[in-house]
């Protein structure tokens, strides 16, 4: 049991956890800034990004694809901002215009180019392939101390771990400006904070987390983890620090429980095949949000003027 777990489940589970947490942390701030759907937009434009990267380089490799996806998310954010400002269009509609058009472009490019020889399709971008990221070189828990075996870890694992460290580090360093400018942008400006730059930085960090995560776990988890754990945490506590902590907890719980249910749940019910882990992780995060919405101690709006402009 232990050996099988290390070989088959340890790496994907860790990757799932890292991806979930890396998305949930910036998700807290996006949620409070009413930009929760930025995650939705970014994860849709990942597809054209990787297709263009493939057409340019001719190979399906992680780094070009991530660069392509990152480039596409920056283009998307820039376009959304341009349409919002130049056209005076509300942000939701501007987002809807940009990400659907870019996604459509991605699908068309994909259909028009010869990708029959490589594994590149819409489904992959949507739900990733978490289950296939196994650690073949492992012989059991002892392999964790074996350099040779560690080299055989799927490269997604160190990449996702690095992303998580980066996201956590940046959030920690810029905690105060983030909190201040999210709560009271006008005041933050008078204190001398570069408010627009902070907003852009947050979106870029979110894009980095999304791009690193989609390759391993697909877009669905990315959108779900940007929103569901922070939203659930918001209904459990009234402090920002506590909210971020809870959201990390919910993200870990969704990833672990979702992975286990996807892999072993069907077996317990008497079926042979596992179901999509990415889908199940999103489903579990939704169940957690549902419970928090029904029973969370802080689920109701507080305040005499809860509506912000």
């Amino acid at each position: 049991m232990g050996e099988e777990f290390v070989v088959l489940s340890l790496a994907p589970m860790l990757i799932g956890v890292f991806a979930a947490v890396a998305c949930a942390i910036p998700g807290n701030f996006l949620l409070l800034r009413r930009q929760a759907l930025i995650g939705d937009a970014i994860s849709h434009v990942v597809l054209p990004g990787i297709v263009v990267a493939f057409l340019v380089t001719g190979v399906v490799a992680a780094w070009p694809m991530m660069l392509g996806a990152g480039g596409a998310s920056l283009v998307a954010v820039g376009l959304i901002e341009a349409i919002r400002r130049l056209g005076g269009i509300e942000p939701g509609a501007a987002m809807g215009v940009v990400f659907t058009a870019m996604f459509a472009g991605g699908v068309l490019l994909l259909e028009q180019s010869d990708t029959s020889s490589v594994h590149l399709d819409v489904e992959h971008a949507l739900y990733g392939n978490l289950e296939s990221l196994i650690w073949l070189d492992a012989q059991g828990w002892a392999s964790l101390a074996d350099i040779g075996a560690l080299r055989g870890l799927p490269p997604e694992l160190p990449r996702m771990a690095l992303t998580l460290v980066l996201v956590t580090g940046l959030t920690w360093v810029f905690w105060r400006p983030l909190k201040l400018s999210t709560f009271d942008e006008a005041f933050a400006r008078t204190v001398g904070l570069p408010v627009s730059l902070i907003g852009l930085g947050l979106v870029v960090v979110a894009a980095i987390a999304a791009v690193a995560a989609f390759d391993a776990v697909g877009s669905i988890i990315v959108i779900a983890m940007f929103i569901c754990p922070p939203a659930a945490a918001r209904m459990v506590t009234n402090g920002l620090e506590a909210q971020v902590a809870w959201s990390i907890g919910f993200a870990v719980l969704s990833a672990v429980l979702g992975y286990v249910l996807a892999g072993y749940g069907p077996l317990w019910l008497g079926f042979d095949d596992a179901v999509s882990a990415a889908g199940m992780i999103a489903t579990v995060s939704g169940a957690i949000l549902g419970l928090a919405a029904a029973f969370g101690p802080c689920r109701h709006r507080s305040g005499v003027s809860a509506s912000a402009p």
Partner: protein
Amino acid sequence: MSVELVTTEANREDRDALAASPLAVRGLTVSYGEKPAVFSLDATFEQGAMTAIIGPNGAGKSTMLKAALGIVKPVSGQVTAWGEDLEEMRARIAYVPQRATVDWDFPARVLDVVMMGQYRKLGLLGRVKTKHMQTALHCLERVGMDGFADRQIGQLSGGQQQRVFLARALAQDAELYLLDEPFAGVDAATETAIISVLKDLRGLEKTVVAVHHDLSTVAEYFDRVFIISTSKVAEGAVADAFTQSNLQKAYGGRLATAQMGALG
């Protein structure tokens, strides 16, 4: 200033006025769309005084303040603080925004908000020490909100929220305090508390500028007025500028409904 100006004499005098003033604007025009909300304002706020910015609804009171602080971008105009570029002087300026501009459902306690006032002292990663906490608690005490430090901000009344904002400004330990409608929709106890804090500030040689809408209290609360109705109508000591004819110019027929009793 790279260009030589039209009248050097006027220019030199104006430079002196700018240098003496904690906040001054020249030729400030702000527009949302194609109609200026504020047109070609010159204002020179006086050091150590309490000035009320008054004018009818939609006259550009708040807009003027926001543009002076760089919160909205003007079409034209320049702003100086103590004769210098505003950005250099940020540390000496405290600001109390309108209460309705933030989401009070934000996950923060009263103390968190007051601590935000000490951002410039703490910086990105500076450790919060006991003295910072004490400063924050002391500022809460000055506005009569001690005992609320751990309260979620959404659970406060409107007046209490306004006092928390004032406490945050006090924590900035500034020399110029700019307040946007501090008395709008607050209870009588809060109004008394706020005005006594502001008068204390004046006693300490600080400068206070507040957007104000209640003409009946102008003479009682403030030393000076700046009357605006898109452009400047008058600026000066209450006794000189707060006159029937100036108010008539600014408010027009609306003056009849805007507390004529104020003029006694």
